[in-house]
């Protein structure tokens, strides 16, 4: 089988080792309505409250190197999907700098911007909502590459190749999305993202809605494609088991901030941040024998009014006065391992 995406030499040039594929510097993203002029006057006069603003991302630094799988973990509402969307280039950050292969993405224009857009693709969470119910599988997969002029031979051959690559029977490509199960739809979603020959895939909870046996099949598809097409992944998930399985590096998010980042073995064997430790302690594993669940107290605070200082301090068993006022900076504590916790400043006991 000849595939246009299968190139003889690895896609990444020699300097790729030094320049990361994606580099985010102090990326913030806020959501909220802009007050109109009349409202602004009444706010200035103190007659109205300023509109509520959600701080979805708060000065996040993150680097993704070519060829690696970065797992992004956090509870719902922590901003991991927002970060995924920004990484895929479909949502602009409110402030901060987003470098794509060393170039500022906001400054890209014309063909360079289109190339960057195509090279980063996103696979969405809900495979039913993200496939147009009125388009058949072939149209869904072929639409984008046809528009971008990526199909050199026959359209059906091009589509068949990509469907086969994800383990989807091409003879069924004339059918509509609702005729397929969740697992099959997930495969179509992956094929559609791959059809524009991307280098970087953002998978936002791509296996969350699937049954265990189907989840295993899809995870295997991701692993195979990575080797075959030399892909880089940002794998967003709340499932630590899945992330541990597929990732090279893991970043843990809490309420709009990345609190810890480390290689996968490191984070699972030596978690540093109290939140990471709590999270890992609660992952159920297949290990017969009853065990007591020691839950972290409280719930994720609202991103409308995040706590002062370290966002985790109201739930943290080790919180001190300093944590209540000063937000900790993320510091390197071991090679490749960084964590944002004031405890690391104290001499170890």
């Amino acid at each position, binding site marked *: 089988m000849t595939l246009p995406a299968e190139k003889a030499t690895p896609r990444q040039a020699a300097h790729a080792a030094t320049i990361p594929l994606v580099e985010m510097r102090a990326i913030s993203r806020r959501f909220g309505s802009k007050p109109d002029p009349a409202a602004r006057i009444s706010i200035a006069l103190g007659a109205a409250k300023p509109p509520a603003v959600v701080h979805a991302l708060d000065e996040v630094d993150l680097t993704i190197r070519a060829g690696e799988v970065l797992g992004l973990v956090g*509870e719902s509402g922590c901003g991991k999907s927002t970060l995924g969307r920004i990484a895929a280039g479909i949502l602009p950050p409110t402030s901060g700098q987003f470098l794509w292969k060393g170039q500022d993405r906001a400054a890209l224009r014309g063909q360079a911007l289109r190339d960057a857009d195509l090279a980063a693709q996103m696979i969405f969470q809900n495979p039913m909502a993200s496939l147009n119910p009125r388009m058949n599988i072939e149209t869904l997969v072929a639409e984008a590459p046809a528009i971008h002029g990526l199909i050199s031979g026959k359209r059906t051959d091009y589509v068949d190749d990509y469907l086969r690559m994800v383990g989807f029977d091409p003879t069924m490509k004339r059918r509509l999305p609702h005729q397929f199960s969740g697992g099959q739809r997930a495969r179509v979603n992956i094929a559609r993202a791959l059809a524009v020959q991307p280098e970087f895939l953002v998978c936002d909870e791509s296996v969350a809605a699937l049954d265990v046996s189907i989840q295993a099949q899809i995870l295997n598809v991701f692993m195979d494609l990575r080797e075959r097409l030399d892909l880089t992944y940002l794998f967003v998930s709340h499932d630590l088991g899945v992330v541990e399985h597929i990732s090279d590096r893991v970043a843990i998010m809490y309420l709009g901030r990345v609190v810890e980042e480390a290689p996968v073995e490191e984070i699972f064997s030596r978690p540093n941040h109290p939140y990471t430790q709590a*999270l890992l302690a*609660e992952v159920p594993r297949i290990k017969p024998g009853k065990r007591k669940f020691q839950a972290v107290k409280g719930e994720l605070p609202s991103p409308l009014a995040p706590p002062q200082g370290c966002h985790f301090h109201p739930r943290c068993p080790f919180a001190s006065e300093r944590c209540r006022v000063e937000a900790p900076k993320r510091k390197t504590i071991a090679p490749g391992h960084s964590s944002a916790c004031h405890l690391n400043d104290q001499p170890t006991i």
Partner: protein
Amino acid sequence: MKPLLDVRGLVTEFPGPSGKGLRAVDDISFQLSRGEVLGLVGESGSGKSVTGFSLMGLIDKPGKVTAGQILFDGEDLVAASPERRRGLRGRRIAMVFQDPMMTLNPVLRIGTQITESLHAHERISRRAARARAREALAMVGIPSPDERLDAYPHEFSGGMRQRVAIAIAMLHQPDLIIADEPTTALDVTIQAQIISEFQKLTEEQGTAVIWITHDLAIVSSLADRIAVMYGGRIIETGGIASVLETPRHPYTHGLIRSVPSENSRGSRLAQIPGVTPSLARMPDGCAFRTRCKRATEECHARPEQFGTELSYHRCFHPYEEVYA
């Protein structure tokens, strides 16, 4: 000792397109003692939720329990009158559902919803009912329960709503709680809180629990025994350690190995080929045979329960009892 719950050959059918009954629950048998936790595990469409609804007597028409017995404390619930079942439901058998937003009435205050269940089963003054409701909320760890009684469900987070649902289920100190994926919609830390709440309550009150889930990991740390469902049948059941460490049925075996774990990092996961067939296309004989690599001619016949009442499997070609 007589078991609290003894289900024998239970069949629940829904009419199919051709008039033929589709068996969502197909001849299942299991037992449960007081204070025991049974994990009922299966993938979507395996019939685990329909089993829960059948036990509660909540199967909607045109669905129907068409065969078998549900012996609850010696009494056959299948033969019991609707009035009798209503008297038991909520009082001696309670259920906690997956989505707490769907099970709480959005236009009633939390306090009203809790006391409603008390008034339905007991002659109790409003004041006493309110005190009991307050107690129930405090028991599941809801802060400032007095004020919370007057709140509406939308003012609660998902984890808090599930606590309310558990509080309602625990109100009458039932003998049996059927929990249908109670933590699936919740985050890991909240899930741990709910499970620890459950563990505390069942230990203190000796309640038996059927925990319906697709998550083997939760079951492994919570349950005493496990029953694995596929295609409407219990294909394997037994003590938690024996089933998870030495699964006999190829489906159980495959299911356990397809869960990502610390050992699987960087390698391919073992996968079960294909998908669960729909009820209308369930193969005859062993339902799993079309996806099973051990299947032979023999599997066209329906496998019986091999083993004892408490620990059995339904497979002609099981894995050895001990393997490395």
